[in-house]
């Protein structure tokens, strides 16, 4: 009976954790993915002075930094640091008004976030 209870508790905790993780992670990843897609269009519109996008980008970076700790508990740190590194580079290019590098970095970031939502999501491809 004691063993059954232990296993029931473990199973319940696993289901709770899996559900919490699925919801939280997809929210975080989707948010960053959406924001990066939006900002991509804004870079096109502000080709001459991309520094105006710095506050918005900083906001995304802060959001990511605040959520990264939680994600690190569940995902490979290398995958997560790829986003952080890319965001840092993008911040630097934006601050220096370096459009060419910035737009290239946004492309990279889009690729990474898209890959992450693919890798971290609960999909048939990932299961198989």
């Amino acid at each position: 009976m004691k063993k059954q209870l232990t296993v029931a508790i473990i199973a319940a905790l696993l289901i709770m954790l899996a559900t919490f993780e699925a919801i939280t992670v997809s929210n975080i990843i989707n948010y960053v993915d959406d924001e990066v897609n939006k900002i991509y269009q804004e870079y096109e519109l502000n080709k001459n002075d991309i520094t105006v996008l710095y506050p918005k980008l900083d906001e995304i970076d802060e959001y990511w930094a605040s959520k990264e700790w939680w994600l690190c508990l569940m995902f490979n740190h290398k995958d997560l640091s790829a986003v952080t590194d890319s965001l840092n580079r993008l911040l630097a290019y934006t601050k220096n008004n370096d459009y060419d590098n910035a737009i290239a970095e946004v492309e990279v970031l889009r690729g990474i976030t898209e890959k992450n939502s693919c890798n971290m999501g609960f999909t048939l491809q990932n299961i198989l």
Partner: protein
Amino acid sequence: MTYTLILRSIIIYILVLFLLRIMGKRQIGQMQPYEFVITLIIADLATVPMAETALPLAHGIIPLFTLVCIHFIFTFLEQKSDWARKVLNGKPVILVDPDGINYTNLKLCNMTFNDLQEGLRNQGYFNLEELLYVIIQTNGMMSVLPRAQYAPLTANAMKITVDNSSLPIIVASEGKINLENIKRANIDEIFIITQLKPYGFKSIKDILLMTINSDGKIYAQKYNSSFVSFDSGKKGDW
């Protein structure tokens, strides 16, 4: 990084120990196929996040807990359903019957004659004509039923009455008294010394091992000396 690795190793070790304790006490050789598979996977899973610090511990812990749940479900099914037991464990196979070796079953188990002979020798049987049945159990252990004329002689077969042997308990070992057991045997240190003095024991420190059974029979051995065995006359009821 070293501290991280040390702590991760400790966490994984304690966790795996805890999970194996939940799973039960069976030895590797007594495991059913599904238990063996889970044990193999657990060993592998535990080592992955132990050394790879970029991976969160959750990558090892979550599959480990999942496997324990699966193991529990399988054990439950095995206990409740004959069909599930057959699917999960297979069924015992007769390798030798009164007519001799069952070659079809031997091949079914992917066994050779050498494997069969080795298993039989482990059981203490060297000649096939001594055997009535040899059955290979689902956990891979071999059970042997010898023909009546080769079976070990028992008191029942001899139609004689014998007393049940009693369980000896350790009252002292390596110079120390086992307080719990001397209480159980209802004896004390003075009793031990009095009993052992005639055999050259000067104090408790001289005792390598001393046991007493419920008939009052004492087995005692000094360091670097041969054992003595005698009746103390002190009967117990454990």
